[in-house]
């Protein structure tokens, strides 16, 4: 399975014209390539690509580190990175549906894929020249043929996304950006509830005590420094976020 996902209808996640792609053709399946990939694997513990390289499978060159930037645009790039991850995940889910996917599940997962692509494509045009490039993802730990693996990964992504938007709102300076983030996060909340209802139907799980504090009725809010380590195993491209705004003390 390739890590360079693309949706059925959107542009490639990695720009075909980038220097990465041209460099790629120069990398042969030699011991040198294997060593290089191994080094990447060592830097990125979530990646299993090193094993692929040692087995002689093709390895895509690792992108150079991407920095999210500063200020409101940095926060929006942070959201864009998360939406890229979600869109790539659901695109893969619908490209290789798990066995036994019901028509009801297919309808939900297709809509969620479309919504995440909408979010991704919106950020891409909204950020324009300030947009980070398409990120490479790493889904080697996900079994796309397993309902359990797919739905629990979806649950994790949605709940993490909600907490990320909830924690990032305070970092934005411009009200218009806060409003757009608000328009997206409630849809993520709807996704989370739907996925959770597929996992444990008609129960309290859609807004379970594990994510919604039972004493306060509040969903989690996480700062970027808390969110990025949670998603790092799924993002192959190294991402740095040192210039993002910090919450006021």
């Amino acid at each position, binding site marked *: 399975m390739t890590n360079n996902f693309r949706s*059925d*209808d*959107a*542009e490639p996640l990695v720009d075909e014209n980038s220097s990465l792609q041209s460099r790629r053709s120069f990398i042969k399946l030699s011991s040198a390539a294997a060593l290089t990939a191994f080094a990447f694997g060592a830097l990125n513990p979530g990646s299993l690509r090193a094993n692929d390289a040692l087995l002689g499978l093709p390895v895509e060159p690792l992108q150079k580190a991407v920095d999210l930037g500063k200020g409101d645009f940095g926060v929006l790039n942070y959201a864009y990175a998360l939406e890229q991850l979600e869109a790539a995940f659901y695109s893969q889910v619908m490209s290789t549906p798990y066995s036994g996917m019901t028509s009801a599940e297919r309808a*939900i997962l297709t*809509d969620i894929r*479309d*919504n*995440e*692509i*909408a*979010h991704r*494509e*919106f950020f891409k*045009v*909204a950020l324009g020249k300030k947009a980070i490039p398409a990120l490479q993802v790493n889904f080697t730990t996900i079994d796309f043929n397993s309902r359990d693996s797919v739905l629990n990964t979806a649950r994790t992504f949605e709940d993490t996304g*909600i907490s990320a*938007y*909830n*924690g990032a*709102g*305070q970092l*934005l300076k411009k*009200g218009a*950006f*806060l*409003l*757009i983030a*608000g*328009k*997206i*996060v*409630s*849809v*993520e*909340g*709807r*996704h*989370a*509830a*739907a996925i959770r*209802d597929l996992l444990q139907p*008609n*129960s*309290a799980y*859609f*807004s379970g005590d594990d994510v*919604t*504090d*039972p*004493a*306060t*009725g*509040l*969903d*989690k*809010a996480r*700062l970027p420094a808390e969110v990025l380590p949670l998603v790092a195993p799924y993002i192959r491209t190294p991402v740095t976020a040192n210039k993002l705004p910090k*919450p006021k*003390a």
Partner: protein
Amino acid sequence: MDNNKPLLETVEPEYISEMTARREPIEKAKLMTGAMATTIVSFGALAGAAYGQNNKLPGKIVDVLNFALTLEYLEDEFYRTALGSSGLIPRDTQDVFGQISKHEVAHVALLRSVLGSKAVAKPNFDFTAGGAFADVFRNYQTFLAVSQAFEDTGVRAYKGQAGNLMKNDKILTTALQIHSVEARHAAMVRRLRGETPWIVGDSRGTLPAPTQAVYNGEGNTSQGGADVAGLPGMNAKIASQAFDEPLTKEQVLAIAGLFIRK
């Protein structure tokens, strides 16, 4: 459940610690950790420090919080009444509404604690909306319909007020943390009604006509000047359902006002 129960009797110490420690100086966080087993009064002092003194909250923020509190009063009393209405909610969805009710109770308590003496009183509600939903506590389908309308309205109401809370990061974040919970509620109730969890266009689906105001404007497909429907792979359906839209305070009060006795 007593609506007047102070927040801090219901709040877990870990939560106060987490919320406050993140934002307060380390010394204060240390103090708190040591104070976990002490009185509610000291939790109250810490919560005051976390949100800003109640009597120093700007009037604009007080107004927003009282607006939110009014909606939470509405939802809270609605679900507690429903859960207390024998035979209304089938056994297999009792857990769903028990969970929603638990959250609305907590939201009322939380907002009241932040507002302190500035909290508005609970209005007198008429959940039949003057007879439009006469069997709301006798007919499960009517109850579900009103529930969906309340939850989808709540999501839009919080979204519309976020910008008015930007001067107080703690309160803004708390409002966002409620907002996403209302979205979870809305999605779940919509599923119970056989609707998509997300709002497609400005469709009220199978809800009765008087609820259309809850969905007006949801068909928007333009965000931040970008025509989302025209982006690669997009169309109007996706562009509308992928983004929820806000309502103004006036729009929300026009909807909620149908359920408030004059």
